């Protein structure tokens, strides 16, 4: 981190970087199953994105202290992946429980997507990446926020593109998932255009 640059600028640049340049779906290829599965209905895509945002930020908030203050001092950092999986799964259940009990409106908004997030590898990828790269707590949060926003942007754009695609005649061999994957590949190439936007130093 460059000491001449204010921390808030670095924080915002980290968010933009994880959001567009290192996009979780199109550059790192995490969370493809939900991207393809839910990405054909904008409302569902947005709900899924909302749930992913919520869980990713919460997971980053909880997992970084566990790694730094429990796993590292006890010299058992090899337990990280297993710990994160269980922490994320428990977190989703606990948050879901409170939402179910106290906030029916939020329960309706998240829908069935909150329990499904448990199996979304994007959440685990973010948390694992934070500790593997040795990021500070602030930068971990920036990475989590940026990644989550990037996921929402991409899945919503993708759902609108797929709606447009349904209106046009597609050759039989390309119908359904095939054309969706080609669209995702083209989007990935388009997102390559963002590389170099944020200087590495």
């Amino acid at each position, binding site marked *: 981190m460059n000491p001449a640059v204010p921390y808030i600028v670095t924080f915002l640049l980290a968010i933009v970087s994880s959001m567009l340049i290192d996009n979780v779906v199109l550059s790192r290829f995490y969370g493809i199953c939900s991207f393809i*599965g839910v990405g054909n209905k904008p409302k569902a895509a947005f709900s899924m994105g909302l749930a992913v945002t919520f869980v990713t930020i919460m997971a980053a908030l909880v997992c970084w202290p566990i790694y730094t203050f429990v796993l590292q001092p006890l010299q058992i950092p090899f337990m990280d992946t297993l710990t994160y999986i269980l*922490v994320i799964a428990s977190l989703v259940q606990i948050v879901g429980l409170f939402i179910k009990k106290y906030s029916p409106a939020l329960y*309706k908004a998240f829908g069935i997507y909150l329990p499904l997030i448990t199996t979304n590898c994007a959440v685990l990828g973010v948390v694992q990446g934070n500790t593997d790269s040795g990021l500070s707590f602030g930068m971990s949060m920036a990475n989590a926020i940026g990644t989550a926003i990037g996921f929402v942007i991409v899945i919503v754009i993708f759902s609108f593109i797929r709606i447009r695609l349904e209106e046009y005649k597609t050759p039989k061999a390309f119908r359904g998932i095939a054309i969706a994957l080609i669209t995702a590949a083209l989007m990935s190439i388009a997102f390559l255009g963002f590389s170099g936007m944020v200087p590495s130093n």
Partner: protein
Amino acid sequence: MPDWVRWLLAVGILVVLLAIFIISFVLYRKTPVPKGCEEFEKPSEAKCHGCNQTECHFNLYYNDPVEKAKEEVQQEQTEEQRQETQKEEN
């Protein structure tokens, strides 16, 4: 710190986390669904209309080969109709 202590700690953490997960899972299942959301967790035509994931437990057509075949036939018919309409227009 000796290796056996580290392994013991690792197993201990794992057991604690598993216990937390099981307790939270049971509590989540036991918590009553809010009013107005009773039908929410049940699969329905409206919810699953746009979703292709028939492997999903929530999907109405979960592992139903007959429904899958019906969908494919319907899609093909729609496509044929669309082609015919285009031909007529031309």
